[in-house]
């Protein structure tokens, strides 16, 4: 605005410019109010848009971690209940063997009955060890084998044999099923149970131990205390030895159960943490991207008033010229 001469056209042009600017601001505020977003394009706030992209990506990852955690909890609760079953069955087998070692072996018929009972327990235990979750064997690690143990009780999961300094070798199961619960390298939780460590494999397996007791109970040389042709152990000694072996097997299963329990607890903790993170991230995103509703509405109302005033003033100012007053 110049000092001095003010012309009619200047008045019109500047009124139009001012009304236009007021209208543009009104449109911007009404956009913010209707979308609820303060930042709808990068230039609205370049620094905030980079942060928003980061938060959106973290939100997306966090949602995925929630899926992973839920899936992991499914695996772990399945493993947990199966381990409880396996412990009970092993304990039951051990009780039966103790019974066999003590009193219940007076006749061939009662021995046969005990053997049949033990067979049932063994088969149940093998069934438990071959439990599947969503089509995958939970004790077979990362193997795609449908069962963790085959008919000869051999472990089917991937194994690795390492040489010890004393010349012997140690074979362990490798490849556990893991679920990612966060972005860090350590943010993975094992959701499978190590079937090889829990149940053993082949002749060392808990199943083979039970089978050995069953064979001893059915041994025709039981009454005469004749040593078995292959093992060179008398049936009674074999049964007594079975008590200790099943006791050791129970310890192994319980040890693995404890690991599953610890992982389960970690997973449940992760689920709670995940929900907290989700809330925190949403708060962060909202703080960066969302418009403050109260402030936006207040601004909108103020701007509406300013716009109406601009229109009113323009209407009043541009109408009269000197012509209106010269009659």
């Amino acid at each position, binding site marked *: *605005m*110049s000092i*001095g*001469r*003010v*012309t*009619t*056209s*200047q008045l019109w*042009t*500047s009124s139009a*410019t001012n009304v236009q600017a007021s209208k543009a601001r009104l449109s911007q505020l009404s956009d913010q109010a209707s979308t609820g977003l303060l*930042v709808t*394009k*990068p*230039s*609205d*706030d*370049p*620094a905030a*848009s*980079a942060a*928003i*992209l*980061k938060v*959106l*990506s973290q939100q*997306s*990852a966090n*949602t*995925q971690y929630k*899926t*992973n955690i839920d*899936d992991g909890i499914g695996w772990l609760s399945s493993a947990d209940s199966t381990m409880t079953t396996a412990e009970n069955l092993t304990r039951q087998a051990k009780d039966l063997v103790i019974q066999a070692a003590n009193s219940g072996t007076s006749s061939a018929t009662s021995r046969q009955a005990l053997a049949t009972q033990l067979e049932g327990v063994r088969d149940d235990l093998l069934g438990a060890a071959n439990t599947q*979750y*969503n*089509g*995958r064997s939970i004790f*077979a*690690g*990362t*193997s*795609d084998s449908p069962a963790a143990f085959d008919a000869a009780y051999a472990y089917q*999961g*991937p194994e*690795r044999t390492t040489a010890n300094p004393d010349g012997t070798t140690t074979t362990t199961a*490798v*490849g556990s*099923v*893991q*679920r*990612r619960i966060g*972005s860090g390298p350590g943010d*993975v939780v094992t959701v499978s149970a190590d079937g090889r460590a829990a149940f053993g494999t082949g002749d060392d397996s808990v199943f083979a131990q039970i089978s050995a007791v069953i064979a001893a109970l059915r041994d025709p040389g039981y009454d005469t205390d004749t040593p078995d042709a292959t093992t060179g152990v008398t049936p009674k000694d074999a049964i007594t030895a079975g008590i200790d072996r099943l006791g050791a097997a129970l310890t192994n299963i319980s040890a693995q159960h404890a690991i599953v329990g610890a992982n389960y607890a970690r997973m449940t903790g992760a689920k709670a943490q995940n929900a907290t993170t989700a809330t925190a991230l949403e708060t962060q995103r909202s703080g960066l*991207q969302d418009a403050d509703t109260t402030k936006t509405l207040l601004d909108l109302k103020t701007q509406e008033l300013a716009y109406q005033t601009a229109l009113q003033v323009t209407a009043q100012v541009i109408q009269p*010229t*000197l*012509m209106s007053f*010269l009659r």
Partner: protein
Amino acid sequence: MSTFSGLGTAASGLTAARLALEVTGQNVANANTEGYTRQRVTQSPMAQTALATYATQSSVGDGVLVTGVARLNDAVVDARVRSTAATASYWSASANALGTVETALNEPSTSGLSSVLNKFWGAWQSMANAVGTKSAEGAASNLIAQGQLVASSVSAGYTAASTSWSDARSAAGLTVTAINDAAGQVADLNKSIRALTAAGSNVNSLLDQRDTAVTKLAQLTGATTRPNADGTVDVTVGGNLLVSGVTTRKVELTGDAAFSTTSTTPVALQWADTKTPVSLDGGELAARIAALQPANADGTGGVYAEAAKTYDAIASSIATAVNTASATGYTSKGQPAGDFFSFTSPAGSPALNLTVKAASAADIAVAGKDLGNSDGTVADAISQLGSAPDSPDAQWAGYVSRIGSQSATATARASTSQTAAAAATDAQTSASGVDLDEETSNLVIYQHAYQASARVISTINDILDTLINMGAR
């Protein structure tokens, strides 16, 4: 003093008042005409004629003399309008180009490329979870679909950038035509003005037209003007004469009209006669040509080409990262895994040719070496590629924030320079615009001046009548 001299004086007043009323009429008629400069009759008292030298008494003068019709403009303000218009159009065109690209990014949102990438990485994690289970095929189909979505998103982004480039190229061509037209118009007007000025005619309306055309040239090219003695103006662009008196030099666009080959022959402006480059001093065309430039190493090239380059870079880096990680893995059937992504044509743009090669779960790398077929460590490792410092996600986020700040800067500068341009136009309107109040009061003044002159004549008439009829009673 002659008996009748009073009549001549009053008659000159009548003529001057009538002419002034005509000029007022012209001003009122053009109150809303763009580029019209108000005019005013300039008049001076008529000196005593030579005959009066022999008069015995001193004379009051012989009436009024209309010396001309002045065009009330301010050359300094006019120059300021031109230079601010050049700056304002430069930044406005820059902000428009950046705005086009920025809007096409569709960020930050839950449907832009960053979100597509997030979903893609998530699908790898679901794949890691599902391997060996009954959901494996479903997870694999989802992963392949997400991979295809990544491919189609970068391809759509690249296509949008290349379409915008072509549109901007056509628009630049139209701008060049407008420049040549305006230059031709200035030269034609120069010719008319020179001829009419020599003949002593009023050229005010032609000057208005020429000023409008020159302002248009300044807006488009940042041109500056220099007045000549014969009433013509010269228009200079980048130190060279675009209009010299009544002659013009034409400018033309060079460079390929196809986006795919623009990096080898960039778009540039040159003189049509000598084929030497024109260096623009700003203005709309400078911004348009800058936006059409090919991409360069430090990311300051043309906005469209930089966008396309980013999509290409993302397509290449995502394919390389995923394929390299895939190569270390094995499928759920225990076979070494092949590439997940491939390019339909290795020579063309990576963004346009990116495609998913894996067709089913059997082609997807999930397991590590000797870890069992249902292992998911490699799929999990791939799912983490997105959070690496040089990941496609990081490249994209960096680009989005760069475009955002460029666009915000350009918009802010456009707004500032428009304010300056508006202030200059305001000052111009203040100096040369028509004020109806002023014209109305002039109307009254000149009307009364006319009436008063007429009354003088009528009074002298009465006096003479008295004198003539003195002895006839």
